[in-house]
């Protein structure tokens, strides 16, 4: 019996591949790595590139990943693919944009948060919803 291992290639948005294979090649940050069954536990960062898997019938399938993390256990391999292209600078820009949007919205307001008022208004809204529900039931 030939040795196999299970592999899951997943991204946050979708499951890309799941199955039994004999070999896997992944673009680790320090160069491509080849994984065979019974590999020692390994945790590696991946850069964007191609992940190739070879199944029991010797057929090769390849997938593109945007970088991510590769976890290897002796008989289970997990490829956590990123969905977006990640770079420190890009993340930083995105964070600044999110902040700026919030600040723009807050610009003309004071910073005091009135919980009492928020709560009161919510209680009112919830009461309205409850009433509507009750009215509906009575009909």
């Amino acid at each position: 019996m030939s040795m196999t291992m299970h592999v899951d290639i997943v991204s946050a948005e979708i499951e890309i591949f799941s199955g039994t294979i004999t070999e896997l090649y992944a673009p680790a940050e320090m160069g491509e790595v080849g994984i065979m069954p019974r590999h020692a536990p390994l945790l590696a960062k991946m850069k964007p590139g191609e992940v190739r898997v070879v199944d029991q019938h010797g057929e090769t399938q390849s997938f593109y990943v945007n970088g991510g993390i590769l976890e290897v256990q002796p008989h289970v391999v997990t490829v956590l693919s990123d969905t977006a292209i990640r770079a420190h600078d890009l993340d930083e820009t995105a964070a600044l944009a999110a902040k700026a949007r919030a600040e723009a919205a807050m610009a003309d307001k004071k910073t005091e948060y009135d919980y009492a008022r928020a709560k009161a208004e919510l209680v009112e809204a919830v009461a309205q919803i409850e009433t509507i529900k009750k009215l509906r039931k009575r009909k």
Partner: protein
Amino acid sequence: MAGAKEIRSKIGSVKNTQKITKAMEMVAASKMRKAQDRMHAARPYADKINTVLVHLSQAHPEYKHPYLSEREEVKRVGYIVVSTDRGLCGGLNTNMFKAAVTEMADWDEKDVEIDVCAIGKKAIGFFSRFKAKVVAEASHLGDSPSMEELIGAVKVMLDAYDEGRIDRLYLVSNNFVNTMTQAPSVQQLIPVKGVMDEELTHHWDYIYEPESKPIIDGLMLRFIESQVYRSVVENIACEMSARMMAMKSATDNAGEIIKELQTIYNKARQAAITQEISEIVSGAAAV
């Protein structure tokens, strides 16, 4: 007869409203199915990243991530609130805001300050109206949000945690129980709970490439992001099913109103006919 014409036009306008709500119901139903599929598609990643974190907790790395340890003093907490972009979905957002505000009020009593990261237009509107400190926001995510759009907003909160500006981070969103029920939930994101408290059975460690620190950092970042992403996707499924239910009852209500108006109209018409006959009869009798 004066009333009949007005009542007829009223019936017409209610009928038009009914057509609109019916259409919205059907649109929401089909979108809900897609949103549910997306919710299921996001599950494997969350499961796998959880497995890896459990493995990692057993592995005994020399580096312990700051997200795993509890801070003793809590001076400021962060909330990521996930809401919808659009309304007309029943009490979905209101119930969720209520859950969030109840929690926030508890913190407020303990003199703990609060930062809010609002996702979705409704949350932005709500929290800025009440002058909460909204430090980051993301909206217009559409029906199929991508991770890319959330990274920035999440990073603001994670940076705040790293720099010690907040000591805890919570995630508020709706849980999709089934089509009829959505339950608001408040979940603690940081310090990470539940993944790291398993007993060590034996001592082993990964081979890290390049080093343990950047990998674990990256893993934690993705873990938090995937949690937020999952709740955003789940919230969309909630939105669609809540809207479907709301529109269904609106359609039903419109039907009832039409029925009532129809009765009134018939009565008015009958009264007019009766009056006319009695006028003719009394006129004939006079001759």
